[in-house]
């Protein structure tokens, strides 16, 4: 099945299950919108958080190309910086109030596992997921559910999803959370409805988003996260470009290189920040001891890459990306020696940031984890946060990986329904956490601090605030990150500080000689993501009920 639509008047044919970003990428388009300074932007995060791939669809601006399914005959246009104030077409969203025993937010490895466990223990369970097909970032399902899974990882995700449906979990897909209030009460929107959900127990399983490299040119169209490229390929069978350069740290980078190669891409460089594993035999052995299967999977993947002629360049970091004709030129260094490479797509991943917005809004205690440079939510052995009745599982709590997320989901799902935990869950969790620990010792790398970024580097993508502007504001000694935000507009844009906050919080803390903590980051605010005024108008009907 195909669909036809136009982009700036040009006709595009694509698969009926595509999102706009995939169809445009397949048709060779990289730039989707223009910023206030007329810079061009395209798909970056591929998962609905960066807000950079906005297009105007049938006259309605501010639609994320990465999350918007194509419709026959739709008129997609490049989004201008300040679209006209045209009243949108009336949209009927049904206001719905739900009060399930257990609400799970996020349909990835942790969320699906939690929902199944809670349902199996007898609870009525509602699960919200933003995507049309759940599975999350790890299982990353094909948007075309008729397509055969690409590999065991996709099959496993499909199986988990099937089990959730069979167990009787109410699965609300394409449902995005934008509000979290004490209670807890969750506000969310789907294409047809707006929800106010007040569950007895809440399980947050919102995963993580990727940390890019803040270097000159990281905002150019064609530069995206490794995960965005993986989504284009795994969910939509679209390559991010023909010649692909990958820069990052950790096993995902090589995995995606291998997947894209298998899909027909030419990997022009696979640059890993960490030194070669052979230099760290103890960590490698420890990793193998804790999970032989996963370790073997990793080595098989690297062997496969070698067969394709792709070798990992270790000790390598990107320094700048330039647009050159219709391609991208990356300046990088490998073992201290400068190099450059031309590519059609440049993929970046330097770790992960937990999507902990809901947890922070609800007031869950957090502590700073220096190793992964992000916040970890404080949890009991049953994954309950410091807010009674609110549980958190998986990478939204701090990086832990999908296998641990699934066990945590199981533990939290049972605990949320009052069922006791199982000893084998606890031992499995210890094993997965031990594996993660060894894995990241193997991949540990000295990454540049944001302080070291070149003056022209955008620190805030959305508001286009450069490192030089940040430095100028820092000379006034702002008292806290809020004062810096007001002085520079850093963090005031559509992504709500998701990319700049970790960088700026670190810079401020190191300047002031203070430890990082929850308050080092921007204060959590509703909406969790930019929310349509139409959704708010529809949700107002839900106020007639007692708050």
């Amino acid at each position, binding site marked *: 099945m195909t669909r036809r639509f136009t982009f700036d008047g040009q006709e595009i044919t694509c698969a009926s299950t595509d999102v706009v970003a995939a169809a445009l990428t397949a048709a060779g388009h990289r730039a989707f919108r223009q910023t206030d300074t007329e810079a061009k932007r395209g798909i970056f995060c591929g998962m609905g958080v960066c807000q950079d791939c906005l297009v105007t669809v049938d006259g309605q601006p*501010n639609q994320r190309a990465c999350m918007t399914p194509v419709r026959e005959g739709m008129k997609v246009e490049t989004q201008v910086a300040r679209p006209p104030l045209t009243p949108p077409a009336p949209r009927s969203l049904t206001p719905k109030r739900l009060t399930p025993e257990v609400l799970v937010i996020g349909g990835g490895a942790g969320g699906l596992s939690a929902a199944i466990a809670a349902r199996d223990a007898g609870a009525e369970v509602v699960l919200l997921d933003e995507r049309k097909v759940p599975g999350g970032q790890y299982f990353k399902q094909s948007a075309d559910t008729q397509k055969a899974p690409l590999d065991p990882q996709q099959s496993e995700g499909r199986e988990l999803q099937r089990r959730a449906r069979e167990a009787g979990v109410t699965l609300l897909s394409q449902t995005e959370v934008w509000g979290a209030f004490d209670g807890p009460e969750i506000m969310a929107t789907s294409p047809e409805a707006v929800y106010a959900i007040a569950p007895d127990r809440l399980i947050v399983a919102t995963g993580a988003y990727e940390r890019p490299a803040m270097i000159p040119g990281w905002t150019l169209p064609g530069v995206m996260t490794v995960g965005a490229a993986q989504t284009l390929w795994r969910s939509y069978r679209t390559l991010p470009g023909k010649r692909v350069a990958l820069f990052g740290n950790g096993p995902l980078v090589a995995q995606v290189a291998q997947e894209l190669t298998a899909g027909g891409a030419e990997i022009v460089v696979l640059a890993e920040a960490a030194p070669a594993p052979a230099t760290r035999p103890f960590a490698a052995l420890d990793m193998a001891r804790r999970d032989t299967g996963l370790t073997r999977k990793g080595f098989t993947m690297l062997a496969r890459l070698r067969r394709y002629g792709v070798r990992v360049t270790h000790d390598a970091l990107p320094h700048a990306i330039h647009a050159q004709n219709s391609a991208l030129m990356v300046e990088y260094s490998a073992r201290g020696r400068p190099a450059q490479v031309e590519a059609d797509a440049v993929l970046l991943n330097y770790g992960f940031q937990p999507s902990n917005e809901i947890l922070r809004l609800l007031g869950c205690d957090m502590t700073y984890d220096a190793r992964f440079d992000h916040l970890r939510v404080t949890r009991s052995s049953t994954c309950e946060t410091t807010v009674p009745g609110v549980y958190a599982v998986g990478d939204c709590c701090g990086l832990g990986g999908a296998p641990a997320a699934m066990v945590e989901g199981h533990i939290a799902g049972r605990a949320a329904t009052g069922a006791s935990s199982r000893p084998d869950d606890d031992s499995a969790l210890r094993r997965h956490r031990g594996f993660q620990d060894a894995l990241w010792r193997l991949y540990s790398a000295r990454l540049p601090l944001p302080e070291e970024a070149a003056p022209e580097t955008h620190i805030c993508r959305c508001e286009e605030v450069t490192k030089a502007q940040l430095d100028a504001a820092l000379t006034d000694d702002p008292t806290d990150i809020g004062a810096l935000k007001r002085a520079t*507009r850093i963090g005031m844009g559509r992504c*709500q500080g998701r990319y700049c906050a970790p960088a700026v919080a670190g810079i401020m803390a190191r300047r002031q000689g203070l430890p990082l903590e929850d308050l080092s980051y921007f204060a959590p605010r509703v909406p969790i993501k930019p929310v349509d005024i139409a959704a708010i108008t529809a949700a107002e009907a839900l106020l007639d009920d007692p708050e």
Partner: protein
Amino acid sequence: MTDLLIIGGGITGQVAALVAAEAGARVTIVDAQRNAGSHANAGSLHVQMQSRFLRLNPHLADNLESSLPLYLAAVGEWEALDARLGGVELTREGGLMLAETPAQLEFLHEKAGREARKGLDVEILNRDALHALAPWLSEQIAGAELCRNEGKLNPLVANRKMRAALDALGVRHVHDRITGIEDGPHPVAHGARAYAADAILIAAAWGAGALAGRLGLNLSTPPEPLHMNITEAGEYRIHHLVQHAERPITLKQFRSGQVVIGGGWEARTATADRQAPGIRKTSLLGNVALAAQIAPGIGGLRVLRTWAGYNTPVDGKSTIGPASHGSRVFFALPGDAGYTLGPITGRTAVSLALGLTPPVDPAPYAPARWRA
């Protein structure tokens, strides 16, 4: 030892510091850095009587009405500040207070009459005149009061430039919370440290009440936590500061294209020192839905962020002047619409402290009315 110690680093204290430093005084600003006042403000320049205040404080309507000349002077003071600071995106395109029903329009007629007698430049617009002026308004709006004195500015720009101007003049900034003041020929303010000065100016909005008791004043300054929303940018079309005769709303568009929506929806008072005031679901939904009814064109934009700040209405009238006759401790409290009135309040109060001629007659605003 400093010539003038100013308690409160919001716009009121900052303008007082600017005036004093330009007159050659050594000035220190001590601030508790809650940042919920001027630093949370959305930049409306109010002149006409706000229906929010009249609705919430009907018993204080006379105070507000008698303050109208101060509001007029306040906008003039802001224009001077705009010039002094090299531009804070100030515009004076006027403010509209909307009516949907004949009764609301009648209320505006009566209000406009009272305001005209106080010197405001106001006019009642019928449906056709209004929609010609503001074609983005919903058809349900039947008329409005236009107040040509009103306007808006960008508080982020103003606050940043203000700080730079003070730094250039050598004004010292100290982070501390003042908990008590000893009056005398050389008054002393006590926080984590003690600060002696020739004169102390209290420009601490909701923090002023706690300092007033020991000065013999029965002044209460509870904060009014108010909810705000901001959208992503759209084409700049909404030039006026928009309010409603009966419903709680202010709506305006920054030159950046972002639409700011507020107007008196309540937020939660912060419970801990380092917390910001909290957001209520009812305010987010109610306030934004109301804005979209009034200006349907903003419906294509998304709400990016909400926040809350403190207004300090006191009794709807400024409190300006020495704590008592001959005291070296002075008050500079705007009394509602603190960001609009801050500069004129700060300049008037500091003029009294330094023996300069105040820009307005301070007599009506004397703290004497708070003597226990």
